[in-house]
């Protein structure tokens, strides 16, 4: 698939010397859902803001749909819908007026039928004549999405779309994102909820301290960086790890009834076969074995820790 957004050596250093983005390069493919994952202040929002034209980069280039975001900003921005992190919305306007306004700003001729379709898809149609300030927080967030979709963007940025959103709305939001993807819209979402990235994304990019640590297919990332834990349940309890097993870095768990062994699934030798035979030699009899896969959360934390 062709890259719809191409980011090359992007940097942003603020006047006070703070580096928000440091040499970020990234290709976003048309039609994918990319999740940008990172702790607060990692540079996710800055990256989005540069691509959308809100922040001027201090280094590097970005093209959107083949258009440079500075020299051909009109063509580039026309492709993009942005849903900001903060709920920023005209309080005294009606839902329909605020949506109509957004469409106009992006240079599109009025199209009430399209606006109706967008508002219906977001369950906002019956609220179209309600003033924004009278809406609940979740509804306001949906209005922001309606504004972003009002001009039929090919790319949608969702900056922390489900921060502070209840479970039902979060599920709705996820369903909506999938529908949009099925319609061919490229979606870039930022989140610090690992679950969200795990549920939604085709690919995951991890950002920390302004650096893009990696971008990887979600499943491959899980496999590649996934570590497993083998828990060996013993017939008789132990108080400490026998010296003969010291080299495995085992930990005693479940009040001595089990030993845990962490290993890398990608390593040439996982060490499991040796461990099991050494256990037998040490005279320990095994009652049960179980393995657990690490979640994206652990993957993420270990990446961020490496970067620290």
């Amino acid at each position, binding site marked *: 698939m062709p890259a719809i957004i191409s980011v090359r050596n992007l940097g942003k250093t*603020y006047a006070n010397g703070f580096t928000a983005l440091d040499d970020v390069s990234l290709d976003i493919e048309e039609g994918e859902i990319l999740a940008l994952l990172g702790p607060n202040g990692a540079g996710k929002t800055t990256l989005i803001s540069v691509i*959308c*034209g*809100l*922040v*001027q980069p201090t280094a590097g280039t970005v093209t959107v749909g083949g258009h440079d975001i500075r020299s051909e*900003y*009109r*063509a*580039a*921005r*026309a492709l*993009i819908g*942005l849903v*900001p992190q*903060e709920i*920023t*919305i*005209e*309080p*005294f*306007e009606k839902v329909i*007026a605020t949506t*109509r*306004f*957004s*469409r*106009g*700003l*992006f*240079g*599109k*001729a009025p199209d009430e039928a399209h606006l109706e379709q967008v508002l219906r898809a977001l369950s906002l149609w019956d609220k179209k004549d309600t003033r924004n300030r009278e809406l609940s927080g979740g509804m306001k967030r949906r209005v922001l999405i309606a*504004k972003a979709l009002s001009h039929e963007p090919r790319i949608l940025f969702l900056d922390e779309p489900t921060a502070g959103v209840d479970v039902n709305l979060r599920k709705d939001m996820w369903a909506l994102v999938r529908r949009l993807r099925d319609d061919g819209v490229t979606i870039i979402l930022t989140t610090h909820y690992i679950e969200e990235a795990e549920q939604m994304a085709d690919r995951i990019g991890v950002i920390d301290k302004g650096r893009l640590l990696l971008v990887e297919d979600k499943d491959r990332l899980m496999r590649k960086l996934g570590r497993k834990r083998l828990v060996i349940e013993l017939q008789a309890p132990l108080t400490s790890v026998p010296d003969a097993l010291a080299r495995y870095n085992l930990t005693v768990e479940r009040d001595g009834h089990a030993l845990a062994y962490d290993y890398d699934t990608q390593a040439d030798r996982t060490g499991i076969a040796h461990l099991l035979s050494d256990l037998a030699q040490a005279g320990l009899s095994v009652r049960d074995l179980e393995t657990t896969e690490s979640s994206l959360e652990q993957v993420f934390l270990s990446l961020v820790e490496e970067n620290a």
Partner: protein
Amino acid sequence: MNWQAIRAIYVFEMARTFRTIAQSIVSPVLSTVLYFVVFGAAIGGRIESVEGISYGAFIVPGLIMLTLLQQAVTNASFGIYFPKFIGTIYELLSAPMSFVEIVIGYVGAAATKALMIALIILATSTLFVDLQILHPVWMVTFLVLTAVSFALLGFIIGIWAGNFEQLQLIPLLIITPLVFLGGSFYSVSMLPPAWQTITHFNPVLYLISGFRWSFFGVADVPVGISIAAITVFLALCLTVIWLIFRTGWRLRQ
């Protein structure tokens, strides 16, 4: 040009005007009526005429200018400051539109609203005094140029302002005194010579003088200088706007 975007901003801003019709239109009209009652009736009873014009009629151009300036500045400054304040400016800055288009949308709407109110006040004043307009084309020219220039100034203030206090500061502390001291309610020739000289440093004098000339054919300063003054002011505002556009000052980080 992204005409759809200009139209969207213009329509949006004008809708705000009509939504807040009471504060937008009724209150300036009411305060003008009060000026008529206080200055026209109470003081005008003692001053029979100024330069051959009845005092009630004499103050009409000044009153219109007073409101026009205040309205153009406050509407444009509020129009752009409010999105900054509530954060919706992100949408303007991420839209495929240039700064020029943003300016045309906001300044156009603010100038339109100020002109509407000016015309309403003009119509209202005919209920109180007999008016003649000797040079209607020039009158409209002065109105439009002044409305646009001061809406531009208001836009600059709105971009500059970091809080609501700063937003009010310039209209309150600079523009209103300049209008009052710029010959709204008197002819400069009525002042002592020293004050006459000082008054000539007040840019608003030239606006009011030229505008009054378009009504009655009498002016404190030659009308050519008035036109030059408003043109220079317009050019100055456009230059500042251009600099803001070039640097992204207070808008893009």
